[in-house]
């Protein structure tokens, strides 16, 4: 048995400079996700790119300004959050969450307020093993969702805009070294950046109340942000 030879550096270098073909670029992206060594080498190459960028002579700007960029960002945030709601409610990918499992997880007050849960409890995948269903108690300023995730799920790093309060109904998750089990309440203040992990093999059901949409900051943050507000 022998070890595979190291990755040919030109492949990585072309990727760092942006010269890879789309297919090789995809292959490299997959490779990089599996090789810590290559990621470190890529980081070195990208640092070279950054340093070279700093040394470029300025090209005077004619049409764009920082104020414009900020104005676009302000406008788009409104648009994106409107669009996200539409997608979440109407056309997000359907998730088949075991209904009895969730039903069993609901404590009495939630069952008693069954009407509050909304007649049509459709579950939508948010991605990364988390499914959500929006509850009828949601208002303009505050949203309530039931969240369901499989045991062992690593939830992508996200930043909270507005406070989020989460009640664990079933199962458990870890957040910043703390384990939250059934009945525990986790509060994430505005601006919190975290990366919770579902404990063990058991699925986890939570009730989450958020003041405002959540921003995902991880790998596919932008894509997720488009349909994944809770």
């Amino acid at each position, binding site marked *: 048995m022998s070890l595979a030879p190291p990755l040919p*550096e*030109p492949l990585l*270098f*072309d990727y*760092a*400079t*942006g*010269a*890879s073909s*789309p297919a090789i*670029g*995809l292959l*490299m*992206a*997959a490779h*990089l996700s599996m090789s*810590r*060594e290559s*990621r*470190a*080498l*890529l*980081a*070195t190459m*990208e*640092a*070279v*790119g*950054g*340093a*070279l*960028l*700093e*040394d*470029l002579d*300025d*090209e*005077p*700007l*004619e*049409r*764009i*300004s*920082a*104020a*414009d*960029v*900020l104005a*676009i*960002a302000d406008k788009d945030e409104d648009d994106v959050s409107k669009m996200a709601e539409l997608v979440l409610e109407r056309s997000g990918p359907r998730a088949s969450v075991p209904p009895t499992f969730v039903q069993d997880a609901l404590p009495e007050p939630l069952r008693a307020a069954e009407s509050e849960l909304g007649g049509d409890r459709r579950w939508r995948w948010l991605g990364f093993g988390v499914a959500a269903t929006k509850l009828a108690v949601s208002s303009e300023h505050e949203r309530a969702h039931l969240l369901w995730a499989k045991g062992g799920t690593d939830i992508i790093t996200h*930043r909270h805009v507005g406070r989020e309060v989460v009640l664990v109904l079933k199962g458990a998750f870890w957040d910043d070294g703390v384990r939250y089990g059934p009945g525990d309440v986790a509060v994430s203040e505005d*601006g919190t*950046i975290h990366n919770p992990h579902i404990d063990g093999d058991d699925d986890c059901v939570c009730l989450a109340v958020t003041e405002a949409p959540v*921003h995902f*900051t*991880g*790998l*596919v*943050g*932008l894509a997720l942000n488009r349909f994944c507000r809770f």
Partner: protein
Amino acid sequence: MDRTAPPARNHEHDVALMEAIVKHGSREAFAALFDQFAPKLKAYYRKGGLELSLAEDLAQEAMLSVWRHAAKYKASIGSPSTWIFTIARNLLIDHVRRQKARQGDLKDPSLQPPEVEIADDLVDAQQRYRSLKTALKNLPKEQAKVIRMAFFDHKAHSEIAAEVGLPLGTVKSRIRLAMQRLKGDLGDLE
């Protein structure tokens, strides 16, 4: 104290600006970062062969990404210029891909380069930056030339070889030697 190293004022300054954006949503900090980088991004795209207005459009899009995704930046991993470079490069890749194939899901996240995650060593980040700048400055001319061509003309090894009229092997070895030198001076990022 290493007196041969260029000042790291830019680095510290940029890191402070990024922190102000992430922690306080500072528009002033963003404006300062914009003034510093947008003209360089435009130059980057111009060198990449894009026409003037397109180069500005992409520079604007890149800075918009910087503002929106500021929380993704980690000072322990590298300088803001590195991070901004990767954003600019990815936008250029997307742009080229969109031009080449107008079908398929261009936003497919699997096509995006993965995040680079390296053990945190905040203290070393600034030292690495200084070393890199010094190493770049001291790079032999013929090595510096191919490195710049690669990063700014977005040419693969074989294209560079064709353009400068050198055998492919020579280009490969120049880039390899340059990277070895830069890596050596940078130290092990892990």
